[in-house]
């Protein structure tokens, strides 16, 4: 069984690789390479998988899940410029793919050994573009 919790944060970013020329970055990332950056209202959907506890009838306490998402993702990223303020995006390009993977990496350690495991992180960069990341091995 799966449960999904949704959260939102607003952040700015610029997608450009330091080893590429401005022309190459534009080719690779399009308008997202504009040097001063731009922003999105990101929406993240965190899906856990597991069997409900027979006593509580729950896979995981959704309030606790909300707190984990807030602490590890929303508070550090909301109203921030990802490249300048949120590591590792000082070193890696904050594409939607990399942001989804980073959210996975931040959440995943919280779901070791319990009933619930982290199943999928879906990150909407816009209403028309989203990424699903289910870990390196999926």
């Amino acid at each position, binding site marked *: 069984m799966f449960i999904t919790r949704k959260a939102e944060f607003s952040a700015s970013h610029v*997608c450009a690789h330091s080893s590429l020329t401005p022309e190459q970055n534009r080719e690779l990332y399009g308008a997202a390479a504009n040097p001063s950056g731009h922003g999105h209202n990101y929406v993240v959907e965190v899906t856990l998988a597991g069997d409900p506890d027979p006593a509580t009838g729950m896979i995981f306490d959704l309030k606790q899940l909300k707190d984990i998402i807030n602490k590890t993702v929303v508070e550090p990223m909301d109203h921030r410029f990802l490249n300048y303020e949120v590591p590792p995006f000082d070193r890696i390009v904050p594409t939607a793919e990399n942001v989804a993977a980073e959210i996975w990496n931040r959440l995943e350690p919280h779901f070791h050994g319990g009933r619930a495991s982290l199943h999928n992180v879906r990150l909407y960069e816009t209403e028309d573009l989203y*990424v699903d990341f289910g870990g390196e091995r999926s």
Partner: protein
Amino acid sequence: MTRVTRRYRFAASHRLFSGQFSEEENRELYGKCTNPFGHGHDYVLDITVAGPLDAFSGQVVNIGALDRLVDEQILRDFDHRYLNVDVREFGEKVPTSENILRVMEDRLKARWRSAFPGEWPRLENIKLRETRRNLFELRAS
């Protein structure tokens, strides 16, 4: 494997009618969708591609390249068109959403390698929303 889904929109009209059947049989089969002058929808098209996350670019797919491919292979021919008349495949096939999905898969695959020369990304899924109540989905082969 990481998946990227991109949403596109197009408006088109169609008429469900098969020459293999009589007027009455078409009416029985397709209901009001067989009305003779056709009708239209605001279609929503979700295209999902899958691949490994490239460590250098941080991308699974170059979205600009995907947008160009979808525009050239699909939107340019489908948007603001009468599918039965303006899209060559529907000269023979009935433009049901199921058939539209198959045509889209064929069209994307025909130019996929020139848009994405490497092994990745791969076309994984095409989802077509004909109306808010009707969803059709094709897992690409």
